[in-house]
């Protein structure tokens, strides 16, 4: 399976240009969509799940325009929106059953079996008869994943899935996605502003900023871009105050007589700075704060 996004633009009636000439190719596997808030990730997602029509451009799924083949797209789609809630008056299993039935599972017996299997997979079997308003935040999220997964979707799109989850839940969620991504011919698109989610799960990613794709490739490539620009140094409180004005400080750890800080900088800073190996978080900051600005200046 392959998704091709060509010259995609979305301008809202209020004039907001949410997406600007987006061009992307997404192939089977897990694809991360990273960007700050307001970068256009959700708009792109909503176009991909056929909730919103683009202003111009085209999205092809295996060569077919998804706007003209919404029915086919929706048949293979599993979607978890950013702010997922469900009818409080329905029980956990009922909501899943509703989703399963709409996903095309007509046989009630099989459907109920699948519902229980899915509840088990996301660890909600024990609360199958509980109403939604009685579930914890993490449970609701897992139920959201379950409803998206039910019916074996080929295209799985999740928008900001780990927001608000505790570390355990986040790890559990990542594992579910990893397992799913092992399947053949399945595309998983994960939109997030939490870079850790991308590094641990995605084979490919795109970085969106202000409606534009500023980076597209493997996460390691993004990390490579930051090599030689991440440093660690110890600072006195006075130096720390000064450094805050000069550099992008990524982390700050209190030590004796001052702070151990990690900074991103085009040039090695003066003093006791030691170059360190960047991770994706360093790369994201370097890219957003230095590379893009530098490119714009050029």
């Amino acid at each position, binding site marked *: 399976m392959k998704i091709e996004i060509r010259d995609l633009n979305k301008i809202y009636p209020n004039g907001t240009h949410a997406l600007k000439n987006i061009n992307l190719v997404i192939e089977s596997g897990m694809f991360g969509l990273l960007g700050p808030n307001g970068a256009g990730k959700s708009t792109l997602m909503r176009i991909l799940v*056929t*909730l919103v029509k683009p202003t111009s451009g085209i999205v092809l799924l295996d060569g077919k325009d998804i706007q003209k083949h919404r029915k086919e797209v*929706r048949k293979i789609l599993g979607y978890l*929106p950013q702010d997922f809630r469900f*009818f409080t008056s329905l029980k956990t299993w009922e909501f899943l059953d509703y989703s399963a*039935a709409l996903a095309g599972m*007509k046989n009630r017996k099989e459907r109920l079996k699948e519902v229980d299997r899915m509840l088990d997979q996301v660890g909600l079997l024990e609360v199958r008869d509980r109403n939604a308003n009685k579930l914890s935040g993490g449970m609701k999220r897992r139920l959201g994943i379950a409803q998206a997964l039910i019916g074996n979707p080929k295209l799985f799109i999740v928008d900001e899935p780990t927001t608000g989850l505790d570390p355990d839940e986040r790890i559990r969620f990542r594992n579910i996605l990893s397992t799913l991504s092992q399947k053949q011919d399945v595309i998983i698109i994960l939109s997030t502003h939490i870079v850790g989610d991308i590094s641990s799960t995605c084979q490919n990613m795109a970085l969106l900023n202000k409606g534009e794709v500023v980076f597209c490739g493997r996460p390691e490539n993004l990390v490579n871009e930051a090599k030689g620009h991440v440093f660690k140094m110890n600072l006195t409180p006075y130096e720390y105050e000064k450094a805050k004005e000069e550099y992008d400080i990524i982390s700050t750890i209190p030590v004796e007589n001052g702070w151990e800080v990690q900074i991103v900088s085009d040039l090695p800073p003066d003093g006791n700075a030691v170059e360190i190996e960047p991770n994706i978080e360093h790369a994201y900051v370097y890219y957003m704060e230095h590379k893009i600005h530098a490119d714009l200046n050029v």
Partner: protein
Amino acid sequence: MTFLHNILTVAHYEAKTLRRTWFFRLFAIGALFIFTMLNIGLFSPVGTESWEMVSIPSALPLINLYLLNIGQAVVVIFLASDFLKRDKKLDTVEVLYTRSVSNFEYVTGKTLGILRLFLSLNVVILIIGLIINIISKTMKVDILSYFEYLLFISIPTLIYSLGLAYILMLIIGNQAITFFLLLGYAALNMFYLWYRAGSLYDYMVFGMPLYKSGIIGFDNITAIINQRLGYFFAGVSMIMASVILFKRLPQSRLHTNLARTLLVLCIIGSGITFYNTLNNHLEREKLKRSVIEINRKYEKSKFPSTTSADIELAHKGKTIEAVSMLRIVNDNDTPLESYIFSLNPGLSVKKVISGNSDIQFKTDGHIIEISPAKRLEPGGYDSVTIFYSGKITEAFCYPNFSDDPKNNRYRIAMVNVNKRQAFLKNNYLLFTPESHWYPVSGLNYYPSNPARIKVDFTKFILKAKSDKNLKVVSQGIPGEEGEWTKYSCPFPLTGLTVAMGNYVADSITVDSVKFISWHYPGTDYYKKDFEELKDTLPNLISGFMKDLESGFGVAYPFSCLSMVEAPVQFYSYPKSNTQVRAEIQPSMVIIPEKLSTLQQAGFAKRFARQKKQMARNNQIITDKELKVRIFNNFIRNTFISGRNFRMVNGVLVNEPTRYLLGPSFYFFRNNFYSDEYPVINAVFESHLQKLNEPAPAGGPGMMAGNLSDNDRANLILKNTSFKELLARNPSSDTMRAVLTLKGDCLFNYLRYKAGINEFNEWFKNYIWDNSYKRVNILKFNNDLKERFGFEFYPYLEEWFNGREQPGFIFTEPDVTTIVVDQRTRFQVVFTASNTESAGGLFNVSFRTGGGFGGRGGGQAIMSVTFQGGRGGAAGGGRMMQIAMQGRGLTSSDISKIVYLSPHETKKIGVVLESQPRAMQINALFSKNIPGELVFTIQEVKKESAKQKPFEGEEIVQEIPSFTQPGEVVVDNEDPGFYRSATSKMNPLRKILSGNKEVAETYQSMNLFVAPEYWQPVVQNTFYGRFVRSAVYTRAGTGDRYVTWKGIIKEPGYYDVYAYIGKAGAQIIMRGAGRPGQAGAQPGRPPAGGPPGTPPPPGDQSGEPARQNPYKDFHFKVYHDDGMDEITIDYETADPGWNKLGTFYLSPDTVKVEMTNQSEGRIVIADAVKWVLKE
């Protein structure tokens, strides 16, 4: 399959979601509770089992769904708009929107879900009703009607409400606004639109007649289907529009196109069905206008009179074929060039023959104009035979009445019943003369003079057959002639009625009159209820007939009386030219199926209830006696003297029941006509056709400040002549009241001139001698002159064209015992003055002996206690019993009729053999409101020495003073009385409350919801020279006030008084029931009375006292030293004048104000007086 699967899935979960909402749960639980109670209370054996509810089985599902539908039509609006709101609000639906479900499937599924939920509730409530229905021993089960009403009432309303809610929600996007808009629309429908345009706007069938007859089923099925399908289609089209406008990207072109196609088809469907509904209504209205216009063209024509008619009628399913052989006479004084007949416009004339040859004719709508070979000279006879066929167009029957359900409402319980004037169906036929199903030589309505009527006394022979083998019922003696059923009438009739159906007959002959009950099998439930009366039935019937005959002073003129059961939808409008309704025909009464509209016809329930009540009161009565009593009550209240009370524009109107047998004693036998005064027959009829009842025409209502018919008529005729009034084509209620008053006036004049007994005796013989003849009023005038030596025709000029009314003032009667011929007699003397510039009559009668029990016992008699002013009529007598006297053929109760010329005063003396308890005066046509006065005589003075009896009239020069020297009185009727401007009411509140401001006319007093303005009201207890009225309003903070302004000429100290007419405060109404009802005991006033009768404060009945609506009244007295505020406590105030204080006043305009400030609910303002202290 996926299509259905998706729809059902969405429907399933939508229903589940909604079912679990608190809003629906509360509604459902509430509805289940209310309807269970309602069904138990109304229909079960432990409930009221009101006969009108339980007699026709379809009433149960109808009333259940009718009420539920009003509730659910509102609730569904909220739930439907809520679903769209939820969809908009929750991201949950995004996960559903990304599923492979088309918008069509999604919206349809949602709709089905909501529908399923509501229909389930409907079904559960119907099952509850069905269980009660099955348990009930009184009701039969009409299982089909349960489905029919679900289909006709609930489904179209729900679909339409859903569609409307969706589309508005999609367009407006705000649930609150949508909800309130739709709620407003529902309210607008219920209060304003529901009856308009042939029920076109009535989406929740709030007023559309849906009543199903047990005989013919739905009579208006096409109209029902059209209107309901219209809303069904409109609902579906809006749902389809919602599919198209739904804010989700569509995924199926096929489904979108399906929605578009359905949208177009449903718009077309609703267009066609709504067009049919509207067109049907417009066509009826158009036809009515056309009938009036055609009648206008022909009303000046001369008509022949039909002396005999041989009619052959063949019923052919939904059409008829008929031949009428008519023998006519020209009783005009000029030759007839053509014969004009009126035939129902649905029937078309094929040919007309005279002798054996065809003769020319032309038709103009319903008019057939036949051109005979030679003109018909006055007094000449001719015969014509008319061949015709077709259907009956009912809109023709009452062209001056709109058929909308609001006018002349015909309801059973709370649901409207369709008003039908004729039936022509495969399984049933009913034609009355009003439908002109045979050629009638005259018009059914004379537009220039609606009071005009042409009555022919015709000898009918009917031969009828039905291709459906239906039993033929008509008037006369039945016989068989091959396949024809033949009815020959031995007596002339004013019209012929025919019914065909699966009738069976029961008959009994009493005193040579054959009484036949034509009914449908199974509807003769009363036979079982009155099984024990079988042997006494002839005696009972004989008693009734003798009562009737002695009441009217003549014998029942026919040899039979048929009671023909007709579908409940049969209804006649009241006419302006006669009080005879179509339900009463010569020797025939058309009664509603299973007596369903007659409340007293639930005999078994009444028996059980009364027996229980009697046991509770330790009254011993046998079952048979009780059944006799129930039977008597029913017969009297239905056929002899029953009345229906209803409110018309705030005034209580008591309309005679539709089945009174009165017309048999005048209208069906006699006719007086006049070219100059065409209303004369209606006037004669109004006066003569009434039993002389002690029951007041408007009596019960007067306790609520309601006007009697006489008073209403006098107010209507204030400054208006009878002729001018007729030209305005007044309503039938007005006509009835005015005709009766004018009839009373005319006959009192005749009796005054000829002598009461002399005239009565002569007139009784006169109308008997002229039975079945049309009598010209000029001939009557000549005959009268020959017998009594005076002409009354010249009097008619003033009677018809005069505008002035006399006004009478009476002193209280002075009663003394005297000895005449060595026997004690009672001398009554009183003075009467006519202070106005028109002469007038009043009559006097006396109640003697004990108690006030009237004919048949148990008239609703009210007593009002108050203390009067000095001498004058104002404040009048003391104990009053309101009654009406001097009507009917005999009017034997009148003791004296007095004529007073303008500004004339007479001392009047009457010598009575027995002690009078009360003197009743009927001021007839006058300014006196109320015009019927009763002076209770509480003191009889001992004889004075050598007092000579004084019997007769004596003109006196001194007019009794209305006020005393030094008194200035300002009444609310006087120019010095001012009301503060009426408060402005919110227009919406005005529509919803129906509280129309009618502050310029007298209304019934509403003690529960008093108006927010000063409303004039008339009661005997109030002060007034001629009109005893006051104004009342709802108590408040003092924002409304009235002012009395008088002019004083002398300075000095004045006592200032306010008149407190203790309205209704001393009313005592207890005992047993309705006018004419047996069972009241002499001396003990019975209870009952019309709806709206106020609670009796100070009731002595032993029941818990209800809160008095009157408490403190606040006055402001302006005087030379400023202003004093004075409060009068109603409870402790004297009835009549109450002193507010003594104040010094200089010659000038003096003023007293009263505000609406009060702790009570109501304040009343009447009169104020200033009395100079000596």
